[in-house]
């Protein structure tokens, strides 16, 4: 007998003030409150965070690995977006 599963949540933790929330893993929970409670127990047993986000995995829109090339290619040939593109004499200070 396989019972219906609780939805999957992705868990994001802010390690300390001043940092972004970072994806740390996932878990199952019946609702948002339980997801937060479980996230605390599973992912912050050793003071790993000061804040937690949980998001239903179904609610995340993600880019597909198949379209990786067309999606990111436009950034590839624009080397002039990087500071190293511009030769500046070594003796110019604070540059």
């Amino acid at each position: 007998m396989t019972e219906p599963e609780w939805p999957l949540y992705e868990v994001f933790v802010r390690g300390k003030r001043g940092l972004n929330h970072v994806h740390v893993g996932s878990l199952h929970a019946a609702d948002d409150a339980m997801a937060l409670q479980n996230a605390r127990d599973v992912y912050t047993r050793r003071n790993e965070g000061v804040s937690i986000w949980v998001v239903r995995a179904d609610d995340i829109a993600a880019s597909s690995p198949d379209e990786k090339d067309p999606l990111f290619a436009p950034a590839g040939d624009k080397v002039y977006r990087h500071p190293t593109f511009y030769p500046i004499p070594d003796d110019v200070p604070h540059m």
Partner: protein
Amino acid sequence: MTSTAQPELPSQAQPELQAVFDAVIARNDRIEPRDWMPDGYRKTLVRQIAQHAHSEIIGMQPEGNWITRAPSLRRKAILLAKVQDEAGHGLYLYSATETLGVSRGELTQMLIDGRQKYSSIFNYPTLTYADVGTIGWLVDGAAICNQVPLCRTSYGPYGRAMIRICKEESFHQRQGFELLMTMMRGTDEQRAMVQESVDRFWWPALMMFGPPDADSPNTAQSMAWGIKRNTNDDLRQRFVDMSVPQAEVLGVTLPDPDLRWNEERGHHDFGQPDWDEFMRVVKGNGPCNTQRIAHRRRAHEDGAWVREAATAYAEAPLVEQRAPASVVETEETS
């Protein structure tokens, strides 16, 4: 966002996809859940990560056995924290397995139906409190030897789970060693208890690395795929070399008459575990196999009403009107 498995495509029909996969492995990069991967790679990972997850979950039992009888509040708090960690490790690994397209329910079912395995070490009983220390020192020590190289495994979610686990395992090993050191500073009876425990766990700990390389037909393929980074025998040797000086500090004897330093090799020579016993335990005939699975099945079935009640509560219309969850102190959300 990492949990939707791609439909499987036969690699013969997908040479370009196979080439991309091979290139990622060749440059020692990581495969992520929605990438195309060969069927065998996916199956090997499901088997290995699930077995690993099940081991963490079943591994709660031998030590959990002693929680109510811990000799002090300090030891009880430590043991509770440790057993809770094992549960956490099981959950990290189940999540990693699920990214390969298997559901949590299927995994639990396969464990309690005996269709998937867990580490044979957890089929040995814990007869004294010294076993709590020995498990920390030797069993978690062996687990660390196995797991540290797996932090670099080629499958991203598995490697990330292993990194979290390894950070926590070091507490497990140290608390075990400290427990044994404390007993060794106690009475003759306590020292004898430690030695007796080490005598029982040494050989099963060596078996944790799996059969000798010559009898491990899957190792070569797993290493080619970057799933495994070392062979069973390499890791077993590393564990023996690591444990010998630790045993000296403790003042216990490792129960192997063939154990001695080999100057030429720069490693210890050691005897072989009883591989027939290993096969018997793996096949389900160890001292505690039946009890472990029966206990896990009971916990799962007895918990069914809780899962149903939580689902019903989540689906009740009242949930919509509830204030935002405040179980955890959340800051601003942007």
